[in-house]
């Protein structure tokens, strides 16, 4: 091959690569603007979410969301824990199960939440904890075993509305009748650009997780 034809081929490859990069770039810019400045994330959030069905049950199961090594609960974790306590106070179920492992040598999330519940006046006898499960699937298995040992079949499940579909199916697979009791850190009506970007991130995280659970055969 002569030098000139090699140069021509290189030039074509460069043009092709440049065009592809520009197309990707245009797609990325369009997606960014659609996410930050249109209600697209709000619509996706509502589509992914699960509405609440708050009826009496035998137990309230509050799924984990993370704790810092020094025992500080994350915002989502605290929100879920408080929602579970409110449902308990309303008399919707007598038992309250907190789930969530610790990080490193720190205290387990479930134990930190249980301590909070006791401090807020909930009787220690009605609080259960499960602090080994690291994934939603493990939470369904471990919490399921704890509850089934007590003959419990009907639960109120507390987690984010996006996460609810996946969690609900896993608990149903474990033979529970599940009443969704979702709680959200971000409203699906949020309208500022930063909030919409955060909402889209949560939506994409959940879609990625659902894809993984489907491929792995958990759902």
């Amino acid at each position: 091959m002569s030098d000139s034809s090699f140069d021509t081929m290189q030039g074509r490859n460069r043009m092709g690569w440049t065009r592809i990069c520009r197309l990707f770039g245009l797609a990325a810019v369009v997606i960014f603007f659609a996410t930050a400045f249109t209600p697209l994330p709000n619509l996706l959030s509502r589509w992914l979410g699960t509405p609440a069905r708050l009826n009496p049950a035998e137990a309230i199961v509050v799924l984990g969301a993370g704790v810092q090594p020094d025992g500080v609960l994350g915002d989502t974790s605290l929100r879920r824990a408080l929602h579970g306590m409110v449902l308990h106070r309303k008399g919707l179920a007598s038992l309250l199960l907190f789930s969530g492992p610790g990080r490193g040598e720190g205290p387990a999330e479930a134990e930190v939440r249980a301590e909070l519940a006791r401090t807020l006046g909930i009787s220690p006898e009605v609080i259960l904890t499960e602090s080994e499960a690291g994934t939603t699937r493990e939470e369904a298995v471990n919490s399921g075993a704890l509850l089934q040992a007590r003959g419990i079949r009907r639960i109120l499940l507390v987690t984010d509305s996006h996460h609810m579909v996946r969690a609900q199916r896993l608990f149903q697979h474990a033979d529970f009748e599940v009443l969704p009791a979702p709680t959200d850190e971000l409203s699906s009506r949020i309208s500022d650009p930063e909030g919409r970007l955060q909402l889209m991130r949560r939506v994409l995280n959940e879609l990625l997780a659902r894809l993984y659970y489907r491929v792995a055969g958990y759902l």
Partner: protein
Amino acid sequence: MEQFFILVLVGLTSAGAYVLGLSVLGLSRRGIRKAVGKMLECFGISLVFFVINLATGVIAILLARAAMRGFVSLYMATDVTLPVLSLLQGLTFQWWRDLSGS
């Protein structure tokens, strides 16, 4: 209306920069199209880096889960710093290509 505040703000400063570029710095009017094209190229290559980083991260975490007994969260791969670092990778790679004339 408040959701469009940032758009209006950036629109105004962009228009100011355009006028400044033409009148004070003597930049060419046609150059702005090439500049937008370059920006899209940089953004596009950053998107490619982002997808590669995300896929590699997910695979690495799944391998770590299989190899270790401890729990590794998949959400580690979707940290908010990933798009920013991918953008830096994209910009650097694109400038490297341009300066190397390849």
